[in-house]
């Protein structure tokens, strides 16, 4: 059993690691995408510089903005930060494992989305309202798919507890070629792209009024508020990637508290994030953004995958 001090240190260490890795991951995906499109690409560390720059800038707020507009960046950031304490990134089970399961993680992330949509509406600009409306449409569609994918996983492991799912998969590696596991992974992957505003659903690299969703909501933000929101959204991407990597292919994660296994876990985590980053960059280079009215079809696909995952893990017992 780990002591209390060790447990807290471990949790804080993991959260700091996630905070530090998130801008790097986004920078890496951007750079790789640029290289794949025959562009030179900004350096991988650009997002760090971006954050530094934004934190130093003055905040400009519309006269019509209410308190909601001011607290939203903190709420959004806090929601994602709490999630980094719950998701097993380098060790499983985490000391705080009993504080929240997979459902808590997903709904904390959705809570952030909810506040962001409110803030988009708050200033009363046309773009903000449009972005919020789109974001809510997608979130409402993605939610049943996420819930089903989670239940698909939980049925396989017999628990929604993250640590338990990871440990069980480690003990019983045959689970990973189980169709339920595989289908739940595919469903979760599609929904992750939708939730983190990646390409077939939302394009993170443009401010084109016809298509933007996440960018439209945060158009009014500047300075440290913008920095917090951007950092939170990068962190969200990292969290979703980590969930995908560690819930479905957990090897490399530390199960004992030794320096060596923790170091190995950090290295494998970075490797898994790089692999997923390459996948996303290749996907984003190969496909075009879907028209907004086709997004329900994509998420419907994910819903069906999740449903199949559940049927197969439920009926194949």
């Amino acid at each position: 059993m780990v002591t209390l001090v060790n447990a807290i240190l471990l949790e804080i260490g993991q959260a700091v690691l996630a905070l530090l890795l998130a801008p790097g991951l986004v920078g890496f995906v951007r750079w790789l995408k640029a290289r794949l499109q025959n562009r030179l690409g900004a350096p991988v560390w650009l997002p760090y510089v971006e954050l530094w720059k934004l934190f130093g800038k003055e905040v400009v707020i519309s006269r019509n903005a209410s308190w909601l507009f001011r607290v939203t960046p903190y709420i959004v950031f806090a929601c994602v930060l709490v999630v980094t304490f719950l998701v097993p990134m380098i060790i499983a089970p985490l000391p705080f494992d009993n504080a929240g399961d997979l459902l808590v993680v997903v709904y904390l992330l959705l809570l952030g989305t909810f506040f962001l949509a409110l803030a988009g509406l708050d200033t009363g600009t046309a773009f903000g309202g449009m972005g919020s409306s789109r974001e809510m449409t997608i979130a409402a569609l993605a939610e049943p798919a996420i819930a089903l994918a989670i239940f698909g996983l939980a049925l396989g492991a017999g628990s929604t507890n993250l640590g338990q799912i990871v440990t069980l998969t480690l003990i019983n590696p045959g689970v990973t070629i189980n169709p339920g596991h595989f289908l739940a992974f595919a469903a979760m992957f599609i929904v992750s792209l939708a939730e983190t505003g990646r390409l077939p659903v939302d394009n993170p690299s443009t401010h084109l009024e016809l298509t933007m969703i996440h960018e439209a909501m945060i158009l009014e933000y500047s300075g440290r508020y913008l920095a917090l929101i951007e950092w939170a959204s990068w962190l969200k991407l990292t969290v979703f990637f980590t969930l995908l990597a560690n819930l479905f292919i957990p090897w490399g994660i530390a199960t004992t508290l030794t320096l060596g296994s923790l170091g190995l876990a950090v290295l494998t985590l970075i490797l898994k994030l790089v692999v997923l980053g390459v996948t996303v960059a290749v996907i984003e280079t190969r496909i075009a953004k879907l028209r907004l009215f086709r997004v329900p079809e994509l998420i419907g696909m994910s819903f069906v995958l999740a449903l199949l995952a559940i049927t197969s893990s439920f009926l194949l017992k």
Partner: protein
Amino acid sequence: MNNQLFFQLSTLGASVILLFGITLLWRKSMRSYAETFKWQSVALSLMFIVIGYLGKDPELYAVAAALFILKAIIIPNYLRRMEKRFGDDRELKPYVNVATSLVLAGLFVLLAYSVTRPLVMVSDLPTRAGMPLAMGLIFVGLFLIITRKKAMAQIISFLVMENGIALLAALGTYGTPLIVELGVFLDALMGFLVMQVFVYHIHDTFETIDVDQMNELKH
């Protein structure tokens, strides 16, 4: 241990093949229909090889080879030629919209599970868990046939349903005897060629392959 692996692999393979069928529900262009069908057939032949190897039935290798040549090379070639002749036109709005048909596909699979329950209970082959999925593919194929408007999409849907039947036979009985299997393949090929001729005639007469236009007599 070997049986356990066989069980997992056959279920996984059946779900991949079913997934290719479900992807057809939201693809639009004829080219992607043909591509999806081709890859489904490749997966099906791999499935036959796996069943042949783990079920120790070498006859299935021959079936897999025939299947690969016919459904992954010859028919896709014909389809490509057809598609070139008609131009890459897209499937018109199907009778049921995509989101609904995806949800319906999920329900079909559930239905397939309940329909095949007695079959699965009787069988003691390690491949039995894939049978509901194969039945689901047959349902999805039937659904595709009745909801698409382009004659070419209907042909591909028919072929997908045929794949489902072949998969069901392979999973349920490790394949029918070679001669029957070959007969079925030739039947499918003949059916396909006849349908192809029909489609060319439809195209020549009506200048479209949209069967929705054919509900009144033109001449």
